[in-house]
């Protein structure tokens, strides 16, 4: 089933970590195999923030295997060496869990694709997000468990999207969890509720065009699809509109960039979405109770129609 939620504050910052946790926890009955956050925090914009994993948290149906912490240590060491070789300086390093790391990097990125390919050429290493404000955090369990594990409740920022997953198309692990980074574009993330039926056809086409897939989760296709459109010069909104016919199946998805938040709904309107919109806040989720967690007072909400695409700026 899965549940998605997102919000954007316009003209101010707020405690988006805590707010998104409340929204996703309200949707936990839609799936708590894994939960993911894409948080756009307040930063000085100088350094890149790279969230990456050097191993998996393995749940039911996953093709991955649990490994010894010493393996993670070895991979981290290779990542550090590779960064040094590329001239990147690690300004700050956090290792929340043995397999999950957060680096602030001082690096004049010439080509993010080349950078990412170098890092991900290290076996078992996956970049979850790369950007000046975006941080993707995802792990097994419900929203509160993941929030507590990664101390996300104090993250201040302008906007965020998140996902409560009930695994159907692929196993329970981090690589299949949402949000997906819009590789190789910095600060682009996607969450999706639904099922894409032309996943393999699209994947083959996109891989032939040099795009990268890290999982077998159909939702990853949306991030890659949009990234390919943007690589070819389309705006985010143009890419999203193209996806209404380019992607087949049922879907409601959110996409966020460093300064915007968008939603798209398939032409069958088969997946739910409730939307609240005011001058200073947009909040949306698979169910109204998600919005109620941040706006308990009586508010006006509505369901976007079939084939609708909307984008808001901070």
């Amino acid at each position, binding site marked *: 089933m899965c549940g998605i939620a997102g919000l954007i504050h316009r003209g101010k910052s707020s405690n988006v970590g805590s707010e998104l946790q409340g929204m996703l926890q309200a949707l936990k009955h839609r799936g708590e195999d894994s939960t993911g956050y894409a948080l756009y925090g307040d930063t000085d914009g100088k350094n890149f923030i790279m969230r990456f994993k050097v191993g998996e948290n393995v749940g039911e149906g996953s093709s991955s295997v649990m490994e010894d912490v010493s393996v993670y240590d070895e991979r981290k060491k290779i990542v550090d060496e590779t960064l040094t070789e590329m001239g990147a300086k690690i300004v700050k390093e956090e290792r929340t869990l043995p397999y999950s790391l957060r680096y602030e990097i001082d690096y004049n990125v010439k080509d993010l694709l080349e950078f990412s390919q170098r890092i991900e050429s290290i076996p078992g290493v996956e970049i979850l997000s790369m950007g000046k404000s975006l941080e993707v955090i995802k792990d097994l369990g419900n929203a509160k468990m993941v929030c507590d594990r990664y101390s996300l409740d104090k993250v201040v920022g302008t906007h965020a999207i998140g996902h409560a997953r009930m695994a159907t198309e692929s196993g329970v692990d981090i690589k299949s969890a949402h949000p997906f980074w819009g590789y190789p574009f910095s600060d682009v993330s996607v969450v999706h509720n639904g099922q894409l039926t032309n996943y393999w056809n699209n994947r083959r086409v996109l891989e032939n065009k040099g795009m990268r897939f890290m999982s077998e989760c159909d939702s990853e296709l949306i991030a890659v699809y949009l990234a390919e459109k943007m690589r070819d010069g389309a705006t985010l909104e143009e890419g999203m509109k193209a996806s209404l016919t380019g992607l087949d199946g049922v879907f409601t998805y959110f996409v966020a960039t460093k300064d915007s938040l968008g939603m798209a709904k398939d*032409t069958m*309107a*088969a997946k*739910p979405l409730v939307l609240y919109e005011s001058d200073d806040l947009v909040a949306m989720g698979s169910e109204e109770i998600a919005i109620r967690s941040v706006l308990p007072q009586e508010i*006006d909400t509505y*369901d976007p129609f079939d084939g609708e695409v909307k984008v808001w700026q901070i």
Partner: protein
Amino acid sequence: MANLKTVTKKSKAQSMGMHTEVLTGRTQQKFFNPDEAENFYYFGTYDVDFNKRTDLDVKDMTAPEANKEIDNLMSQGYGTIVIKNPQGKHSLGVGILNKLNLIFEGSLGYFGMGSCDGPIVRINGRVGWSCAENLMAGKVVIEKNAGSCFGAAIRGGDLICKGSVGARTGIDMKGGTIIIGGDAGAFTGFMMQRGRIIILGDVGINLGDSMYDGTIFVGGEIGSYGSDAVDAELTSSDQDWLKRKLKVAEIGENFDVSKMKKIVAGKKLWNYDNLEPTEKKGAI
């Protein structure tokens, strides 16, 4: 399955556009003979006094707890119940088989007022997916917007949304009336079998797709017609009925019903299984 056939002499219900076919064989009337009404006991109903009124704050209740408390209040004779702080909870007010004035001071989540028979309900807020699913009788009025599958499979009663509704409104409906003050999404009237839908605003793609019978009235633009949905002539009796219905519904009283479009089933899909392959192609 009932034997279906059309007749030239129309019953009152047929004249009103509720349906066009005649059901023969076993019918519900056999089980609900008015002569035996005094022996009839409707499980789960109570004698209530509409002047006996109370408030119920459900802020800290789960949906089952709130619904049980509504039932408890009806058993005490309360005929008017005001629900405070519904806060978008799912499945509130389901399974009420009683005459009752029920007022929600706020919005409901999914499946609100499902499987009800008889209550008069006003929701001073919004409703989520599948509001009033399987409604048998009564009246449900929503002051704001509604989600998808609004009035799915209703058998009777009036279901009114003053705002806009999502996709698949009136899907599989088998009777009753749905009135929408704003716009409606895709697949409105999908597979409807009886009853009427009135939309004062615009409606999305595939209107009345695979509708078996019944009537849809649209005041605004139509995105596209679904399979077997066709235009029909808007008669003077249609217009009279629309005016009365909108007045009773307290919605669009000054709306010019003479410009509304009337959509019915083309009936090419009737007895689809018995069609020749070439005929099936033409029907879709």
